[in-house]
C-alpha cells in the first residue's frame, strides 16, 4: 500500500458505509506535529497525512466515541472506526481488547510501521535555538531531520533526526504494529533495542538511594497542577468515573447511599499529587504500552515515562510479561500462577 492507496481505500469504506468514521492525522497550526483528524467526511480524509510527525496515539478517540452523550432516543452507531496505529498504539488496542473494553469489530486498524516519531517540544526548542526567522510555516521535518526553507528552494538543515526524535522511540522495541487490518507502507526493520538499553534510565534511577529518589519525585510532583492531561490523553484511562479525579461527581441514585467516588480531593497539594501519580502508575502496571502521550501532554514536564517504565520493568522482570502483545492472553495482573514470585509478602 501507499499513502494515497490507503486514503482511497478509506474513502471507499466510508462511501460504502462499512466504517463510520476515520481517525488519522492532519496538518494543524503547530508545525511540530500532525494533529488528530476525526471525521466521517470524504473530503476531510483527503487531508490525512502519514509521517514522522504522527505523534499522537489515536486509540483514545475510539474510547471517546463510547462516551459521547447522545440525544434522547438516538443509539450508538456500532460500525467500526478506522484508526491509524503505530507499533505502540496497536499494543494499546490489544490491551483494550484484552480487557473487553472494545470488540475487534469496533475498529478497522490501519497499521503504520514506524521508525520513530519526533518529540514536538524538543524540535520546537531546537528550532528556536537555531533558526533565524520566527515563521513556523518555513519548516520541514522528515526522517532525515529538521530543515528550514530559506528562500523557496534552498533548505538549511537545523537538526538531525536523532536530535529531535522522541525519547520513547529511541528505546522502542516494537516498530511495527502488532495488530492491524491494513498497512500504510511495508513493515520496517525493528531497531533491535535490547532490554538493557530500554531500561537504562530506570536502572540509573534505581541506583539512587531512597532519599534521593524521594527528593527527585517530590520536586517533580510538586509541579503538578492536576490538569489531568496525562489521564485524559491516555488510551488506557477509560474509566467512566476515575477514582483519582472528581471528574464525574455523579448524582447518587435516590435509594442508594452516598458514594464518594474519589480517593483524593480536588485540592492541589503535595500529598494529593503524590497519591494521584502513584495510584495512576499502579493502575498502569502491566498495561502501559509506553506511547509517551502522558509525558507529551504534561504542560509542566513531569517525567511520567520514567515512572511508568519503572513499573513496566518490574512487571517484566517478575512475570516476563509485556503488555499489549497479544489480545488473546489474559492481562498479567488478572492471572495467578503457583510459581509467581511472592517474596514481597513477608511472614
Amino acid at each position, binding site marked *: 500500500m501507499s499513502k494515497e492507496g490507503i486514503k482511497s481505500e478509506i474513502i471507499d469504506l466510508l462511501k460504502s458505509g462499512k466504517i463510520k468514521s476515520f481517525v488519522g492525522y492532519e496538518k494543524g497550526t*503547530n508545525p511540530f506535529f500532525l494533529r488528530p483528524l476525526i*471525521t466521517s467526511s470524504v473530503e476531510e480524509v483527503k487531508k490525512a497525512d502519514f509521517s514522522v510527525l504522527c505523534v499522537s496515539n489515536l486509540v483514545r478517540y475510539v474510547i471517546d466515541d463510547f462516551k459521547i452523550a447522545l440525544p434522547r432516543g438516538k443509539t450508538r452507531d456500532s460500525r467500526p472506526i478506522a484508526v491509524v496505529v503505530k507499533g505502540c498504539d496497536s499494543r494499546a488496542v490489544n490491551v483494550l481488547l484484552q480487557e473487553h473494553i472494545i470488540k475487534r469489530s469496533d475498529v478497522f486498524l490501519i497499521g503504520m510501521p514506524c521508525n520513530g516519531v519526533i518529540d514536538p517540544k524538543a524540535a520546537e526548542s531546537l528550532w528556536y535555538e537555531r533558526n533565524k526567522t520566527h515563521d513556523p510555516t518555513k519548516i520541514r521535518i522528515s526522517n532525515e531531520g529538521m530543515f528550514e526553507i530559506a528562500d523557496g528552494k534552498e533548505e538549511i538543515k537545523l537538526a538531525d533526526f536523532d536530535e529531535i526524535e522522541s525519547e520513547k522511540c529511541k528505546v522502542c522495541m516494537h516498530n511495527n504494529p502488532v495488530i492491524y487490518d491494513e498497512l500504510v507502507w511495508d513493515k520496517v526493520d525493528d531497531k533491535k533495542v535490547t532490554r538493557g538499553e530500554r531500561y537504562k534510565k530506570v536502572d540509573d534511577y534505581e541506583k539512587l538511594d531512597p532519599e534521593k529518589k524521594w527528593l527527585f519525585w517530590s520536586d517533580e510532583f510538586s509541579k503538578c*497542577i492536576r*490538569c489531568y492531561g496525562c489521564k485524559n*490523553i491516555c488510551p488506557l484511562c477509560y474509566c467512566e468515573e476515575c477514582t483519582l479525579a472528581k471528574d464525574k461527581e455523579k448524582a447518587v441514585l435516590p435509594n442508594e447511599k452516598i458514594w464518594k467516588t474519589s480517593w483524593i480531593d*480536588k*485540592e492541589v497539594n503535595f500529598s494529593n499529587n503524590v497519591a494521584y501519580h502513584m495510584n495512576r502508575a499502579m493502575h498502569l502496571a502491566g498495561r502501559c504500552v509506553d506511547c509517551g502521550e502522558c509525558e507529551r501532554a504534561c504542560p509542566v514536564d513531569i517525567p511520567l515515562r520514567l515512572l511508568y517504565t519503572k513499573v513496566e520493568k518490574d512487571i517484566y522482570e517478575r512475570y516476563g510479561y509485556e503488555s499489549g502483545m497479544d489480545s488473546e492472553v489474559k492481562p498479567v495482573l488478572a492471572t495467578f500462577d503457583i510459581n509467581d514470585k511472592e517474596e514481597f509478602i513477608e511472614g
Partner: protein
Amino acid sequence: MAKFVEDINKLLVELASKVELYVPTTNKSIVNFEKFTGEPFEAEKFKNSTEPIKKILFPESEILYFYKKDENGYKFEQVPLDEKKKIIFGARPCDCAGVERLDRVFYGDYMDPYYDARRKNTIIIGLACNEPPYHSCFCTSVDLSPSSTVGMDVLATQLENGYLLEEISDKGKELLGSSELVRDANEDEVKKAKKLHEESHKKVKKIDIDTNAIEFESDLWGREGKRCIGCGTCTFLCPTCHCFTIEYVGSTRQGRVIRSWDTCQFQAYSLEASGFNPRPNKGERVRQRLHHKYRYFADNFGEFQCVGCGRCVNLCPVNIDVREVMVYFKKKKQKEEVIP
C-alpha cells in the same frame, strides 16, 4: 518620568532584602515565578514562564476557612489573609494584562477578600518583549502589545547597558524612588526603548478577531470538540481564567474549606445533581471557553478575556488553536457579507 538601572541584579538583591520577590526561575525544563534566591536573572534566556503570574495572586488551591464542631454548633475560623508585601519582577506584558482581567472578576459586584489582600500588597514590574518570544504570540490581536503596560506598576525594557524603568502607577513610582541604584534615564535611552517596542510590535503576527462573527451554532465546535481531550491545560495555564471550585475537606466534626482551580473543560464542572448537564459534550465545553473569552467577557467589560500569550495554543496536546477558530469565523462572516 523614566528611570534607569545599570545592574538589574543588584536592584533585585536590594528588593529581595525588603520584600518577597518573585522572579522567573528555571527548574529543569520549565520556567516559573519563584522566590528570588540570589541566582542572577538572565534576560537573554528568558522567554516566558510556563505558568502565568496568576498563581501568585490566585493560587491553585487555598484554604478559605476552617470549621470545627463545638457544643453550640459550629465555629468558623477564617484563614488570616495573605498580606505579605510582594514584588513580581519580569512578568511579560501579556501576563500583567491577565492580572487586570482577574481584577475585573475578583473586584466585580462582590469583592473577594483573599484575592484583594494579595493584590493590593503586590507590585508588578513587567518586562517588555524585545522580540516576541514564541511563534504562537498574538497579543497585538487582542489590543495589547509586547510593551503594553496594562496591569503593571513598572515597565522594564532591557537595553544594551541596563534596564529602562518606566513608572506606570503611583506604587511603581514610589518603589523606584526608594532605591539609590536607580537614576533618571536620559533621552537617548528612552528613544532606544521606544524603538525596540515599535519593532517588536510589528513582529507579532496579527489576526483579526471579530466578536460578532463568532457563531454559537456551528459545526466547528463539534469538530474541535472531537479532537479535544478535555484536560485543563488551556484554562489552568491561562493568565485570565479564574474559575474555581469550593470543597469541604474533612469530617463532619472538623475540617477546612478549600478553593481550587476548576475548569469549564471538565465534565463535572457543570454537571448537576439531577444528572442534567447543560454542556454534556466536549464540543459544547470548547465553545463555552472561547465564547466566554471573546464574547461574554467582552460584552461585560469591553475587552477580551484573552491576552494573547499563546499558552493554550502552544501547550494544547491536540492543537486546538484559538487563532485558527477566530480566523475561521472572520472569513466565514466576510464570505457571507459578499454573498448574502
